[in-house]
């Protein structure tokens, strides 16, 4: 599998360097030992750099791969035996099933609303002067990091029982009351943190639209809405789908803002997982692992469907 060695093109690597690295020449069992002179630098050129990857591989393995593998293995473990009992417990429990439907419901609505608002916003943003564009993008980047606990607090101030906007809307007679600590409250909160992310992801996609397409469409007699429907949307479809998937994943995995807003009073998968490993009543890490695995499988499924739609849309 070894690629054609580019090394031979650069024989100028000076001998003093080789000798300073002589200890790295030790792996004489390497395949190329019998070949030409150029193979010698090739051997250490490949051996020593690999060592530089070790610390990275070690940390990544210990703190990203190992916990993931632990989850995958332990989802199928009960009292030291391989078993599907964890999954059976989840499927038999209306409570855990509800956590999934709640999570998916929240993710779908917030991703859809976030995407629509971001699409309108980005399309409009692309038509305003560059300076304003830069400013809005800068602010969006800041807002995209405004999430989790601080965001939940900001929303309590804005939309809580005595929130500024709640009182304003009540005074104006638009709403009787708005309950932030409910499904609709969470949808608003989630949509808020989806919008900046969606804008940042969609913004570059608009580079693919060329200015003269609009004129060309107009010349051919298309109305603006026809231009948007028949030209812009098809061009943006892959970007829109990709963004939608990332938003879904973002919402499904979200935990901090809901937890800060209502501790464990709303039944979400992430809330249940954390309660099973870090709660103070029943610690059931293997059940948490099974829930986690199911959550990851939903994410995987969604991504696969997205890939399938994109590949299909390209050949039609």
């Amino acid at each position, binding site marked *: 599998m070894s690629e054609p060695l580019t090394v031979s093109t650069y024989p100028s690597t000076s001998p003093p360097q080789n000798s300073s690295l002589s200890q790295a020449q030790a792996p004489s069992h390497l395949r190329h030992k019998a070949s030409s002179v150029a193979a010698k630098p090739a051997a250490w050129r490949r051996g020593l750099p690999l060592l530089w990857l070790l610390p990275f591989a070690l940390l990544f393995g210990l*703190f990203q791969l190992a916990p993931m593998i*632990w989850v995958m293995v332990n989802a199928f473990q009960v009292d030291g035996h391989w078993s599907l009992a964890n999954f059976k417990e989840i499927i038999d429990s209306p409570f855990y099933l509800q956590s999934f439907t709640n999570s998916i419901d929240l993710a779908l609505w917030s991703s859809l609303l976030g995407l629509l608002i971001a699409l309108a*916003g980005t399309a409009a943003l*692309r038509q305003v002067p560059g300076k304003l564009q830069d400013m809005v993008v800068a*602010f969006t980047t*800041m807002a995209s990091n405004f999430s989790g606990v601080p965001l939940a607090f900001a929303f309590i101030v804005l939309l809580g029982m005595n929130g500024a906007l709640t009182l304003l809307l009540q005074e104006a007679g638009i709403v009787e009351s708005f309950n932030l600590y409910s499904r609709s409250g969470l949808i608003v909160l989630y949509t808020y943190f989806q919008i900046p992310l969606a804008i940042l992801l969609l913004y570059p996609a608009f580079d693919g639209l060329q200015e003269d397409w609009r004129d060309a469409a107009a010349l051919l007699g298309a109305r603006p809405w026809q231009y948007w429907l028949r030209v812009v949307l098809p061009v943006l479809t892959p970007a829109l789908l990709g963004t939608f998937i990332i938003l879904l994943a973002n919402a*499904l*995995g979200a935990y901090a803002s809901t937890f800060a807003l209502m501790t464990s009073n709303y039944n979400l998968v992430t809330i249940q997982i954390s309660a099973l490993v870090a709660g103070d009543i029943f610690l059931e890490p293997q059940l948490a692992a099974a829930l*986690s695995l199911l959550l990851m499988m939903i994410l995987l499924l969604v991504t696969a469907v997205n890939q399938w739609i994109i590949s299909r849309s390209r050949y039609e």
Partner: protein
Amino acid sequence: MNKSLKAPLLARLTVNGLLILLVAPIMTTLVYSLSAQWGAHILPRGFTFDWYITLWSDSRFLAAFARSLLVCLAALLLSLLLILPTLFVVFYYFPRLKSLMNLLILLPFAVPPVVSSVGLLQLYAGGPLPLIGGPWILIFCYFTISLPFMYRALANNLDAIPLSDLIDAAHLLGASTVLAFLRVVLPNIRNGLLAALFLSFSFLFGEFVFANMLVGTRFETLQVYLYSQRTNSGHFTSAMVMSYFLFIGVATWFALRLQTRSR
């Protein structure tokens, strides 16, 4: 003609609407943090800096703030030290590993922190590496979640420069590969690197899940402290939220300035 004038107006209105939408929670929090009293009325009664003075003389807040700073900076230093050689080795020696790296750096995105925490709690609560409850576990976890940002930003930068040509030229002039990297490649990707660091900082500074689940009050970071104050005065927490937002805002602003300069 009329249409082309109308469209930008609609666009301007939409952009303004978007800005108002994004600014609203932040502005309200700002006003709340500055108001002496604001409850059951549309407008606050009197303005004051007292909440900020109370906050910034609260030793528990200052300690939590310092801990957050320490953990984030340590994690960024670690990821810098690890990602730079890794990127260079992958891009210069093993370009074929690029696709593997692109897959690996998706993992921190695909596996939510809550899910990672499940495994981490079991693996490092005891045993040979008892890391749970201390700053180290946070530093290592923050390294993994900052990885996609750092890697993507730097990979884009490295893709944009003629890496092998630069190194070969340096070799011809007698420089070692390490020296060539430090003196030739690094200055070329400096702005992108700094931008990635600032962006990662504002992201890590707001991290709550790992901090709460793996460490909690044993090494209280800013977010955990903020969470613990949820039942206290809204003015006080608002002042904290605004201080935090100012902090990440400045970091993001630096990052964006560096990015536009490198373009």
